[in-house]
């Protein structure tokens, strides 16, 4: 028995050591354009990417070829981004990589990725939010292959129970403003005697930036000045105060809870929820919940509908020696056919007008709602090299504002945060 165990261990040691020899050959296929993606090959997204690459190799057989590698990321992008950073320091970046929307500016500013305008043949077809997200200093560095969005999910049964006529609810053409939205919340709180909406305040990460910055934009405000050098007089102006007062009031008046229970909307605990396309897929597992989706509430001053957007993109590494082939591949990756494939596989929002036409008959009415809202009101997050710090300050501002007792003076809170943003921008 002991001997057997020993043999087994030796065999394992052997695999570990000999395995190195074999790999060198495998990775020496240097003619192929190397592509790194942040998802795993088992996900629908990864599978779709693999078929697209296979199609590319078939179409350009003998001319160009591509090889894809899957590097699954963890929740916050860790893992994959750490690996990109490490590859950068050792000069081993692939020819094409995926990156999250907010990273565009930092990567472009550092000279990691190259402009790709000249390679894109369908730029006019892309949604404005996609172009905005991938453009830094006038050049397009990255191109998103899908979009995302958030709407207000509502539980039809619970709303009816509270006496709300579903026919009168907010629509994309005629969206409710914050006050009307709060009235609905008041009715629901009165009926059920507990918080009405899960806005995701417990997720103190990028979500708070992504989902709450549209309120500021709807009000006409902004986070930093146009040239991206300062937040003074911008993030602490009247518009910002109004937007954050609205966020604070949602908690103060007991409409939203800062500690929602997990899947509260799905189990009928809360009648309302901020949710995205992934929520639609999740809800397929909860057939008892009948739901609809409303657009984002707008500022009463402007009435302008603004919704969150942004997702992962493709970019070309600046150090690649296969620019032409890589450019061809990126263009191929964002062709209508490829984009349609990935959009349907992953149940996400399309990134181009032609793709919207392709998919709208094939997806659920709920997803179509988000697609329509997105094409009319999507706003990209700011394209700044110091985005991570700026975003974190914004996240903390949202989170701090929900502690209304400690931070009843929004103006003071914002003045304080402006300093932090300015400090980050000056680095």
């Amino acid at each position, binding site marked *: 028995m002991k001997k057997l165990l020993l043999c087994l261990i030796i065999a394992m040691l052997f695999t570990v050591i000999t395995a190195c020899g074999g790999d060198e050959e495998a990775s020496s296929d240097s003619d192929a354009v190397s592509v790194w993606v942040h998802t795993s090959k088992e996900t629908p997204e990864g599978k779709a990417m693999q078929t697209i690459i296979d199609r590319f190799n078939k179409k350009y057989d003998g001319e160009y070829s591509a090889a894809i590698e899957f590097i699954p990321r963890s929740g916050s992008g860790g893992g994959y981004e750490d690996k990109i950073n490490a590859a950068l320091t050792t000069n081993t970046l692939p020819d094409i990589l995926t990156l999250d929307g907010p990273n565009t500016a930092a990567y472009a500013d550092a000279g990691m990725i190259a402009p790709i305008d000249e390679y894109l043949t369908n730029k006019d077809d892309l949604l404005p939010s996609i172009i905005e997200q991938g453009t830094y200093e006038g050049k397009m560095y990255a191109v998103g292959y899908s979009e995302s969005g958030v709407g207000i999910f509502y539980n039809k049964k619970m709303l009816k129970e509270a006496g709300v006529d579903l026919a009168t609810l907010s629509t994309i053409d005629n969206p409710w403003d914050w006050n009307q939205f709060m009235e609905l919340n008041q009715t629901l709180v009165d009926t059920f005697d507990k918080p009405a909406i899960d806005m995701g305040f417990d997720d*103190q990460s990028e979500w708070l930036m992504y989902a709450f910055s549209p309120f500021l934009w709807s009000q006409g405000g902004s986070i930093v000045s146009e040239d991206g050098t300062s937040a003074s007089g911008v993030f602490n102006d009247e518009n910002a105060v109004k937007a954050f007062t609205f966020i604070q009031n949602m908690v103060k008046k007991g409409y939203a809870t800062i500690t929602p229970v997990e899947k509260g909307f799905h189990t009928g605990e809360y009648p309302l929820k901020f949710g995205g396309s992934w929520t639609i897929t999740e809800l397929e597992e909860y057939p008892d919940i009948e739901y609809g989706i409303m657009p984002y509430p707008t500022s009463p001053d402007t009435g302008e509908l603004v919704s969150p957007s942004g997702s992962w993109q493709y970019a070309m590494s600046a150090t690649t020696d296969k620019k032409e082939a890589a450019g061809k591949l990126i263009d191929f990756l964002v062709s209508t056919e490829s984009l349609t494939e990935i959009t349907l596989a992953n149940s996400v929002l399309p990134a181009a007008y032609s793709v919207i036409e392709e998919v709208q008959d094939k997806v659920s009415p709920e997803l179509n709602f988000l697609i329509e809202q997105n094409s009319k009101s999507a706003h990209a997050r700011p394209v700044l090299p110091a985005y991570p710090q700026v975003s974190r300050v914004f996240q*903390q501002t949202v989170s701090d504002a929900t*502690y209304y007792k400690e931070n009843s003076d929004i103006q003071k809170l914002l003045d304080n945060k402006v300093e932090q943003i300015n400090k980050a921008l000056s680095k």
Partner: protein
Amino acid sequence: MNTNKRENIAAYSFLTPAFVLLGLFLIIPSILAIYYAFTDYYLLTPDKRQFIGIGNFIEIFKDPIFLQSLKNIIIFVVFVIPIQVGTALGLALLINKQRKGNMLFKVAYFSPVVLSLVVISVLWLYLLNPSEGLINTILVNIGLDPQPFLSSPDQAMLTIVLVSAWQGAGYQMLIFLAGLQNIPSSVYEAGKIDGVNKWQNFFHITLPLLKPTSILIMITTLISAFKLIIQPMVMTQGGPMNSTITPVYYIYQTGFSDRLIGYSSAMTVVFGIVIGIITLIQHKATKEDETQ
């Protein structure tokens, strides 16, 4: 002289494998980190790295979040050490015995250590939910006020203390158990003949013989408590209002999210020195104790 030389050679040959590996994967990277602390290294432009002297260090002492994180971690350490180590010792003594079904208890007490933090954080967030959670339901039923726990800047860190101690105690328990099992039972048998009772047994035989293990556990638990990162990362993301941000978490954020490797390395150096001094004091204190 000759044997001395032979012993030196033997000792070093036993040390070589470990120190070669430590040198490659820990010492060299640490030395590089110390060097980076004096540069303006931005993660995405490694080639443009420049030496900037002690600039980073001056900034650290003006950084309110870093100072807040130091305050937070001290609160954590002060509470977690006695609770966690005490629980661990208690559990180890309790199950260091031959009895029916003992293995089941051993598995139970150790299980939080091997469980994924995903499970632990999902469950505890549920249990600790201020409005729906089980813990508050119990508190209200026995006539106490419900508590905000993780959602309150005052209670969040203490809640993390309790969850960490609960989760980590099994780890130290395992080491205490090994220490207990290393005590020859002949010692106890000698005691039995002398007619000492259980308590005397514990204070005069078990505890003194467990001393080296206890010192080891105190030092290593102290150091790893200072390096707390995962629990606040998954349970509170450092909030609310920075009340659970810890130095290593902040260093990680600055280095990998904000990409300011230079600045984050400088914080690592400062924080390393702080832990070093505290460990040294603790080490000295336990040493003196030993000579009494």
